[in-house]
């Protein structure tokens, strides 16, 4: 099975082609069958190749299959070749697994939508692009997947293209990603001119075998650091970190399964995958690692604060995703590559769960997304409530569930690697995460205060085809924690599996401190989580404290958070408007019309003017002509005399 692994991406591609070309004419059942079937096939192949990979000896634990030469010009060579190493194996499993569940879920969610086949065609195309990204053997093919996912997110966000908001959100997502991609391209060029190739292993090998040529650039921005930073900017664009996060909250315009798949589980994690995959490069650029950590933690806290006051259920989850991604980048920034990946996996499960749960709530309420219009859904949608509760507890970091283990590992690594400030910020972020997720559950499912009428009563439980994936995801959110137990509890299977793929001395950042401090830190973080949940209960369940009163006391702060720090307006004012104004007024109307065309038409007018002057000579009076005649004769005479 190991030599057929490269088939995995082509199943969704086949699905896309079938649905894209003939999807319209197929019955609904056939459409959902092909869509889910293709993903299921690739998931099964992924499982088999995972087994085959486990059987490989440690140092040769990778497959590689070159299909054909894509671009070759002079000494530049980029092949269309797929490969699997432990890191990409984990990603493939997550993508195909969660992808399959979401496909099944969306057959229910999108039922009856006129664009049903088109939706699944795009979803399959997305999976193909994501799998290409993850299984690419060189940066260029990764870039193909990279932009492919950007395209699919554009198509899927703008799926209901009649809604102007959805269309412009799609465009915004693509353009912001494109900014990141421009930096990514520059990083690629730098890579090529340093290593002569863009293949991952070629570069890793050059880095390992010639440490003296690629010294660790501590403190100064060498070319290695510059390359790393450029790649990171690309990752920031794709994984919605500061400052390029603005597209993710707007991306909620798309259907909920899309938000679950693309904007929670898979696409946004591409940035982290990129950084982890080029860990050999990053570890040689400590400055770049520092920036990654700081930007990550900054985003985590920043997004969490905004999440506190959002009204739209999906916007809350969107900001929570940005925040959790921030955690992953922080982990990777301090060298805890495995920690980052672990959180990525667990986050994929519980965030997909939360999104799909929110989707079923919206589905039940026929499109209602505002939290304050929901209420006491507990009785109408018991199963969704139960599942969402599990998701909430997981993300909050309640001990025992997967969220606790992965987040705790990150916080521990932050603490143990000496980044105390980052650790404290991390704790604050964790508290806020617990608070806003609990707030979401309480507002949506809890009973409304003093008879405030919420049309919760019309809600109906989602069909089985939606609930089953939810249950599976819930189980995963609970169980996923066991694959990466901290040292004091058990062996970290994920670490063993991933270590050959990561840069050898990544584990150096294991940090001091015995098990006891680690346990103390874990206790502290779970305490923080419970504190957050308690606060939310106080606000929205026992109503001891009145959220509006609190908002009243800090009006400016509340408005600041409410309007998302006016970042969108800031970007629009600083970048978009002036750019449009300049290109219209200065470039087009002034430079093109006035200056260049002015010059061209000007010469035309000058010639016409000269023509006019000469025309006046033909005055029509005979005597004038005689006069000119004499003058002419005279000049000839004078000329003869003089010469």
């Amino acid at each position, binding site marked *: 099975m190991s030599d057929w692994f490269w088939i995995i991406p082509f199943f969704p591609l086949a699905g896309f082609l079938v649905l894209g070309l003939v999807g319209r004419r197929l019955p609904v059942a056939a459409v959902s069958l092909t869509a889910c079937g293709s993903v299921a096939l690739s998931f099964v192949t992924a499982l088999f190749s995972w087994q085959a990979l486990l059987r490989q000896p440690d140092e040769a634990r990778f497959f590689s299959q070159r299909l054909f030469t894509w671009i070759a010009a002079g000494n530049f060579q980029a092949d269309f070749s797929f490969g699997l190493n432990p890191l990409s194996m984990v990603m493939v499993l997550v993508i195909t697994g969660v992808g399959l569940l979401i496909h099944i879920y969306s057959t229910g969610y999108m039922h009856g939508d006129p664009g049903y086949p088109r939706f699944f065609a795009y979803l399959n195309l997305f999976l193909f692009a994501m799998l290409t990204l993850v299984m690419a053997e060189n940066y260029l093919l990764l870039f193909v997947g990279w*932009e492919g996912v950007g395209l699919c997110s554009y198509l899927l966000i703008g799926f209901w293209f009649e809604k102007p908001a959805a*269309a412009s959100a799609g465009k915004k997502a693509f353009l912001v990603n494109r900014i990141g991609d421009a930096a990514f391209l520059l990083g690629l060029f730098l890579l090529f001119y340093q290593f002569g190739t863009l293949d991952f292993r070629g570069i890793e090998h050059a880095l390992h075998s010639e440490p003296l040529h690629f010294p660790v650039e501590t403190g100064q921005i060498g070319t290695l650091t510059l390359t790393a930073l450029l790649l990171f900017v690309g990752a920031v664009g794709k994984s919605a970190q500061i400052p390029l996060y603005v597209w993710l909250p707007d991306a909620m315009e798309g259907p909920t399964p899309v938000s679950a798949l693309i904007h929670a589980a898979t696409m946004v994690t591409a940035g982290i995958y990129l950084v982890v995959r080029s860990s050999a490069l990053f570890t040689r650029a400590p400055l770049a690692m520092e920036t990654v950590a700081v930007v990550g933690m900054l985003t985590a806290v920043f997004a969490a604060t905004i999440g506190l006051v959002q009204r739209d259920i999906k916007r809350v989850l969107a900001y929570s995703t940005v925040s959790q991604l921030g955690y992953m980048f922080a982990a990777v920034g301090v060298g805890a590559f495995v920690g980052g990946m672990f959180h990525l996996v667990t986050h994929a499960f519980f965030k997909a769960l939360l999104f799909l749960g929110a989707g079923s709530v919206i589905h039940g309420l026929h499109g209602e997304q505002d939290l304050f219009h929901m209420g006491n859904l507990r009785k109408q949608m018991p199963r969704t409530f139960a599942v969402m509760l599990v998701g909430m507890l997981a993300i909050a970091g309640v001990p025992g569930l997967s969220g606790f283990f992965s987040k705790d590992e990150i916080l521990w690594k932050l603490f143990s690697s000496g980044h105390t400030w980052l650790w404290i910020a991390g704790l604050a972020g964790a508290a806020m995460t617990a608070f806003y997720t609990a707030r979401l559950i309480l507002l949506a499912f809890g009973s409304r205060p003093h008879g405030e009428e919420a049309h919760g009563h019309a809600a109906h439980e989602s069909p089985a085809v939606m609930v089953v994936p939810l249950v599976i995801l819930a189980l995963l959110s609970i169980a996923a924690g066991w694959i990466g137990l901290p040292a004091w509890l058990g062996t970290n299977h994920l670490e063993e599996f991933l270590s050959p793929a990561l840069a050898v001395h990544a584990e150096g950042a294991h940090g001091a401190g015995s098990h006891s401090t680690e346990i103390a830190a874990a206790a502290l973080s779970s305490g923080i989580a419970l504190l957050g949940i308690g606060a939310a209960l106080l606000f929205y369940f026992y109503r001891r404290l009145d959220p509006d009163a609190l908002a009243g006391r800090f009006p400016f702060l509340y408005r600041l958070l409410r309007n998302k720090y006016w970042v969108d307006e800031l970007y629009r004012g600083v970048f978009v408007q002036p750019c449009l104004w300049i290109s219209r007024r200065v470039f087009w109307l002034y430079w093109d019309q006035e200056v260049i065309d002015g010059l061209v038409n000007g010469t035309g007018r000058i010639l016409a003017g000269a023509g006019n002057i000469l025309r006046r000579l033909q005055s029509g009076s005979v005597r004038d002509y005689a006069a000119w005649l004499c003058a002419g004769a005279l000049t000839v005479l004078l000329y003869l005399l003089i010469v």
Partner: protein
Amino acid sequence: MKIPYLLALLTYLPAAGGILVLLVNGAQEKVIRWFAFLLSAAVFVLSLLLVASYPLPAAGYVLEETLGWLQVPQLGITHHMGVDGVNLFLVLLTTFLTPIAILSSFTAVHRKVQSYYALLLFLETGMLGVFLALDLVLFYLFWEVTLVPMYLLIGIWGGERRIYAAVKFILYTMVGSLLMLVAILYLHLQTGTGSFDLLRIAGQLSSGAAALTRTQELWLFLAFFVAFAIKVPLFPFHTWLPDAHVEAPTAGSILLAGVLLKMGAYGILRFCLPLFPHASTAFAPLISLLAVIGIIYGALVALVQTDMKKLIAYSSVSHLGFVVLGIFSFSLQGLQGASYQMLNHGISTGALFLIVGILYERRHTRRIEEFGGIARSMPHYAAATLIIALSSIGLPGLNGFVGEFLILLGSFAKNSALTAVAVTGVFFSAAYLLWMYQRVYFGPLTRDENRQLADLDRREWACLIPLILMAVWMGIYSQPFLQRMEGASRNILHPIQSNQLVAREASPDFRPAASPKPAAGESRIAPEPRSFPHE
């Protein structure tokens, strides 16, 4: 099988067809249309033969032809034509686009149909002649021949301000080509070979037998370059393009954008670089700067256009800015990327104009705000447009990306700051196209005229399908094209690199000094990374 005088036949067949079209009585429009289409399709098949007989590892000129009987011995003008990596695919692009252009104007043109198709066929001959000619005067002759039909096409079948646009088009190009004529004559006299043949002149120059002084070479280069820069259009000379495109009929703007703009870039590759290497390197930084300005400027102005055709015209300014940047990077990747991007631009912009033409035929307007929500009434059309828009943006996997990537890669070694600015062009091109796409295709169906627009009919599909297929094929499997271009690109670069004008392609400053060849990894790694670039 070797067809004698294949090149001459290829060039003059369309003209013969054009004359035939003129002879037929004008009434039977149907016959004329189909005859013109089938003829141009036949010429396309003929050009496929040319590619088939093109041996792969070709270095120099593969197929040279000299018509003995058609020459002016006293002046040394010979009917000398030749094909190499550079012009092979441009010829193919011409013969590929012309039948599509003709097919697309079946329903568009109803006035004076006979002369319309005759002009299109004459235009094709002019274009083929320009790409194939190796004799300077022959090149100049065909260069002028292409102007006349284009002028008439814009002038007669154009939009409202067609006269102004046509005259502006002619004046711009004429001024440039007159400069070129002067340079050709001076060159002819200076090299004293008594012939206008490019190869002999180039031979003389490179062998030093008739060396030009530095100032002579400078001025000759400038004369040639201005003529080509106007045609390309490089930044300051571009204002004729939007007018000419907006007023030209659909078929006219397909060929104008698809092929005529490439004549400028091709001219630079064929004449400026080989004949005047010193001047080219001297001017390279300035020209690259102009090219990058053109990229950013074209994209920005395209962003604010209200007329779709003008938007695409400015996007051509931006895309060809990339081509010029690639040419003047004097690196093999840059050159390969430039000639590849020429093909891409021909296909994607030709298709874009076709699409605007299709919409224009239905609604007789090109203003963006007139549309909205077209995707609902014309889903297939919206899908086709999206694919082509993405190929024009340069989405990896489609043809635009390969060209742009190679160009930027090539020019990065030479001037990384400039390339960093050029890369933002990639972002802007996505911005204006997607914004246009959103305003036209997405959004609610506000106007009721847009409600019952007919989707693509068979003929329009027949025009679009080949373009989309080419876009996808050239995006995924670019090897057949790049391999055939490699020989010619090395030839062009040879004079520039041989006299150490470009610092021996020494490792750009990023690479730490002592860099032994990267050790060969185990077998399983993807093909052993190539030794470091040091042609």
